[in-house]
């Protein structure tokens, strides 16, 4: 079959099973958009800003496990997407970003809307391609999808000069059935010897902790993780990126660890004799001061990425491979050796952890207080949302205190339901990410827990939600300030609140969303909270924006003491330290 470059590009995406393209057109992508117009298999979602396109594609990818696809024009279209590409890169999310480019003969001449997209995006992509000829387009797309979705996943940029998508010149098209890149061989199966050493360590440990992160979700290994822990029954904590990979309602679950992790999770990590790290990367929000990290622990590290292992914390046993394959390998051996595991070995350890939890665990019953004597607590808002959504909604979030409260108080029992920008910490992520999730799962409840600062960073996407009828629920935890920055200023700068409030310039969010055709609900009192949230959840066919005025002075606790602190050094409340 002979096709023009623009049709080859679009047919190749169809071959890859793409359902949605998130994008925004312009001069350099006009030919491509004409090819999009002429097909029916994929739907193009017209966002209001290219950052929104990348976050929506990212949300789609996190919820489904399939790569999100973004279409951009050259120059400003491409640069507007950079924040979203970096967000996906930091969290290892598979994404294909196609950017139009000026015509080949104009490259390097400072032509209108010319930006070196390959150069600008280089540090924040897994790989990138420049299309050099129409006959290579199909092969490049095939390779791009393979790279984005294998090994440690990530975004791949494909830059396409406009002349190579012209509708006139025709070329032979056949989508490749196989892909093989000789220089690219991500590890899949682990080494047997390492598996045996890991099992030995697990059997002998008296104070083990499993620390599972986002890599376990990327690898779709939550079942395998659950099976592993059915043999060893160890206490388990998840990173911010890993929430949901192990059921939060399970008795072994300690909550999140790290900067705003639970007391029992951080204490268990600090005092462990064995840390079983699975698809996690010992980020500085987890380790606190690396030299003081878990002084008595042996470390087993499961990861697909060599460069993540022993980067910050030296691993004693390193198991390289796809996390899913590695866990399958260990499970099949552990199963046969289960008689060697003496569950009562961990009794004292479990008792110790239970005590820590009783001493300083989070209070999950704050929502029961509906008295109007005090202000609304943001923690109670999340608890109400959790109960009103039966704990099984998709929840996207932005960045700040509200994000941490959501992570602490919404209990995720399944992977891919908690969708947030952990690595880059991108304000503005929540709303467009929720659009991507809602498109993927139109019949599921999709909630965005945001703050009045973050929501304004991509608020233009409220219009996209109107156009495509996306009835997501937005809960705006409104503390009238950049709360997380304010908290740091309270704690480290004697309360000098430099540039963290907007005084009286916030919009009336209810009126704002109503002008887009959505429903606005405003809550200012505890006594309105339960009914207001339940009302929002009962509206199924419209986007509802619930603006909730909470205590502007609340802080997120626990919080690791920094600098120079270890995981056992935490602030537990205002002026209260461990």
């Amino acid at each position, binding site marked *: 079959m002979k096709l023009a470059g623009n049709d080859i590009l679009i047919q190749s995406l169809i071959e890859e099973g793409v359902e949605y393209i998130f994008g925004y057109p312009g001069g350099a992508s006009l030919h491509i958009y004409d090819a999009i117009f002429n097909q029916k298999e994929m739907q193009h979602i017209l966002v209001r800003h290219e950052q929104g396109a990348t976050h929506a594609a990212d949300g789609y990818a996190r919820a489904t496990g399939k790569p999100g696809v973004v279409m951009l024009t050259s120059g400003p279209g491409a640069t507007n997407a950079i924040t979203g590409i970096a967000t996906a890169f930091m969290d290892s999310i598979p994404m294909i970003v196609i950017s139009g480019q000026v015509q080949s003969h104009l490259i390097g001449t400072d032509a209108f809307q010319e930006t070196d997209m*390959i*150069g600008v995006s*280089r*540090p924040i992509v*897994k*790989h*990138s391609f*420049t299309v*050099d000829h129409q006959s290579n387009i199909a092969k490049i797309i095939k390779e791009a999808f393979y*790279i984005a979705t294998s090994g*440690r996943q990530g975004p791949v940029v494909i830059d396409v000069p406009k002349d190579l998508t012209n509708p006139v010149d025709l070329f032979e098209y056949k989508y490749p059935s196989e892909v093989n*890149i*000789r*220089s*690219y*061989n*991500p*590890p899949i199966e682990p080494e047997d010897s390492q598996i045996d050493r890991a099992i030995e360590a697990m059997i002998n440990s008296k104070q083990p902790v499993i620390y599972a992160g986002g890599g376990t979700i990327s690898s779709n290994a939550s079942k395998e993780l659950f099976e592993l822990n059915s043999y060893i029954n160890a206490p388990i904590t998840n990173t911010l990126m890993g929430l949901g990979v192990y059921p939060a309602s399970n008795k072994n679950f300690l909550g999140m660890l790290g900067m705003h992790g639970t007391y029992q999770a951080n204490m268990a990590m600090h005092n462990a004799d064995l840390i079983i790290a699975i698809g996690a990367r010992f980020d500085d929000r987890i380790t606190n001061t690396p030299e003081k990290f878990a002084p008595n622990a042996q470390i087993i590290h499961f990861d697909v*990425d*060599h*460069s993540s292992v*022993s*980067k910050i914390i030296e691993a004693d046993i390193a198991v390289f491979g796809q996390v899913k394959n590695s866990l399958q390998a260990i499970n099949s051996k552990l199963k046969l050796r289960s008689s060697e595991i003496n569950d009562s070995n961990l009794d004292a350890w479990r008792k110790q952890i239970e005590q820590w939890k009783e001493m300083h665990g989070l209070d999950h019953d704050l929502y029961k207080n509906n008295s109007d004597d005090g202000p609304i607590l943001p923690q109670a808002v999340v608890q109400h949302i959790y109960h009103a959504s039966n704990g099984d909604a998709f929840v996207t979030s932005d960045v700040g205190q509200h994000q941490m409260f959501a992570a602490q108080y919404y209990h995720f029992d399944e992977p891919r339901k908690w969708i947030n920008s952990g690595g880059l910490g991108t304000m503005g992520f929540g709303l467009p990410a929720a659009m991507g999730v809602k498109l993927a799962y139109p019949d599921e409840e999709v909630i965005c827990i945001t703050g009045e600062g973050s929501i304004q960073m991509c608020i233009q996407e409220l219009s996209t939600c109107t156009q495509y009828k996306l009835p997501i629920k937005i809960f705006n935890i409104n503390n009238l300030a950049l709360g997380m920055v304010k908290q740091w200023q309270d704690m480290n700068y004697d309360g000098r609140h430099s540039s963290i409030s907007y005084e009286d310039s916030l919009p009336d969010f209810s009126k704002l969303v109503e002008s887009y055709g959505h429903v606005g609900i405003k809550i200012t009192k505890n006594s309105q909270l339960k009914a207001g949230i339940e009302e929002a959840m009962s509206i199924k066919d419209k986007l509802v924006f619930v603006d909730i005025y909470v205590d502007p002075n609340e802080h997120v606790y626990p919080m690791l003491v920094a600098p120079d602190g270890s995981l056992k050094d935490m602030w537990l409340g205002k002026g209260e330290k461990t």
Partner: protein
Amino acid sequence: MIEERQLTLIMENKPGALVRVVGLFHQRGYNIESLHVEPINNFKPYKFIEDELNTKFSEGEISRLEIKTTVDDPLMRQILRQINKLIDVIAVSGNEGTYLKGVLRDENLL
């Protein structure tokens, strides 16, 4: 121990491949003391790579890159691992060993 070390890479001679390697040094805060790159025409010394990857190199397809840098052992290991992750890199050697086909071998093969 901090000392001058040499890294040797065999990589696809594709547009942008060299700048990815150099860019990585900058992004991760490693220093380059010297750098030498040239296309490979004599494939004999690399026969073991061809066998391993089940491929045949042809004229102009691959390059050899030598980089000198002054670092300590853990950083050297991290640099090797980061370079090994670049899609266009076929093999990379440092004094710790060689990454080939994503697997570390305990000798300097390049």
